[in-house]
């Protein structure tokens, strides 16, 4: 029943060593399971099992058989009584890193909503001088940027080489190369990331529903993820905790900083691109990463 997709994922994760794979799982759990999809998680678990390949198959089969007997004997009565041990009312869609909400409001209506929200009980704030640049909305649990303009599908025709400078930092080369393939300007990406992320990143591209690049740097117990997507008509929603959102404005672009439990994130949009960097990094490091975007200019 394994999906074809899982094989491709396994192939990719097989390049990582056991410690890195374990760390990916740990970070995903710390981040409320927002980093990895179920398929990615299962692929990682399978790769770990294959790499370890410890224990005899007979032993495992015996363990599974014993667990199944225990399930039937002790836990099945809960099913019949329609109870659970931990009161699990499963949310129908456990949100992953991003979820997409179809746009229901026109741009004009969205502006009105902004003003309504600003006087409501929602923890809602807008920073920046040009409110028409983008609109950020957030509550204690989520953050989203609303794209104010129709994405310009013809922008690629205007892209020139100056939008794709090379990276001097070899760690970022794979990210830049993939961005270039998708015609996402590498000028959106930082030129610096903390020294401790010294390995090669995992770089993944997606075409639907978002066209974009996501890259993950892993170092021992820490991760750093860079994401660059084409904006679509749908909003991107990021999970956050109840800490306040702060902003930083550089060259007319507003960068929104927020935390989600153990991880911090910065989100911004430029033209038709939405960008996000998150991981086990401090706000100060995130700010330094953001500032490095401008160091090439």
């Amino acid at each position, binding site marked *: 029943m394994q999906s074809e997709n899982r094989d491709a994922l396994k192939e990719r994760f097989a390049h990582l060593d056991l410690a890195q794979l374990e760390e990916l799982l*740990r970070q995903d759990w710390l981040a409320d399971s927002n980093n990895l999809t179920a398929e990615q998680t299962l692929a990682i678990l399978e790769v770990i099992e294959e790499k370890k390949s410890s224990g005899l198959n007979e032993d495992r089969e015996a363990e599974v058989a014993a667990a199944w007997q225990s*399930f039937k004997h002790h836990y099945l009565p*809960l099913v019949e009584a329609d109870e659970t041990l931990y009161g699990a009312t499963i949310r129908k869609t456990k949100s992953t890193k991003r979820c997409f909400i179809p746009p229901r409001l026109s741009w004009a209506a969205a502006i009105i909503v902004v003003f309504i929200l600003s006087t409501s009980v929602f923890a809602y704030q807008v920073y920046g001088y040009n409110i028409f640049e983008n609109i950020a909305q957030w509550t204690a649990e989520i953050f989203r940027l609303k794209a104010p303009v129709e994405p310009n599908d013809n922008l690629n025709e205007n892209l020139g080489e100056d939008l794709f400078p090379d990276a001097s930092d070899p760690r970022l080369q794979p990210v830049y190369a993939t961005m270039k393939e998708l015609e996402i300007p590498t000028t959106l990406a930082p030129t610096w990331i903390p020294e401790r992320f010294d390995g090669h990143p995992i770089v993944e591209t997606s075409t639907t529903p978002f066209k974009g690049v996501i890259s993950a740097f892993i170092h021992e117990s820490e991760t750093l993820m860079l994401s660059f997507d084409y904006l679509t008509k749908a909003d991107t929603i990021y999970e956050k905790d109840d800490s306040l959102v702060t902003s930083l*404005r*550089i060259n007319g672009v507003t960068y929104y900083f927020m935390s989600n439990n153990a991880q911090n994130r910065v989100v911004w949009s430029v033209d038709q691109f939405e960008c996000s960097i998150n991981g086990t990094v401090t706000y100060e490091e995130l700010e330094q990463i953001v500032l490095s975007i401008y160091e090439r200019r």
Partner: protein
Amino acid sequence: MKKLTASDMEYIEGLYREMYTLLFSYAKRVLQKEALAEEAVQETFVTACQRLDSIKSSPNPQGWIMNTLKYITRRIQEARNLHSRYLFLDESALNIPDPTAHYKDPALLYDGLVSQEDYYLLSRTGIDGCSTLELAKELGISLAACRKRIQRARERFRAQYGREYKKKEKARLGVTKKTQSRIYD
């Protein structure tokens, strides 16, 4: 809920046998306790049985199971955190020299408001990381009965220490970053 048919059980057993090892290894990694890990997997399949229509109509039942397990491991960890927080609301005020130690007479620590059994249930789950099944076996009762006893202990404790607990929680969550906005233009 509708009774599971033989073919339903066959379907669940197929998934169970196919996925148990991976699910258990995931749960053990995040919960750090074998008994809790096993319970997380069992609870996942309890949920799967209760939502059989949902899982059968899912294009990716394995993904459905994996997401459910992730959610349940979080619930288990939250329950553990809650129990241990209840027990050590104010260790300085209670002057507990070693918060991880077990006390023969917890009533002395909690002004006689906590029964020995309640303390035992919450500390075994919250501090020792006991699964409900382990505790049920210790007490010689059914899993469902044990679950109810833990729930009642939690409710009694919350009622007795509710006000103080809320105050502590507010203080704990009150450490938030100040809003700041800086301009580099």
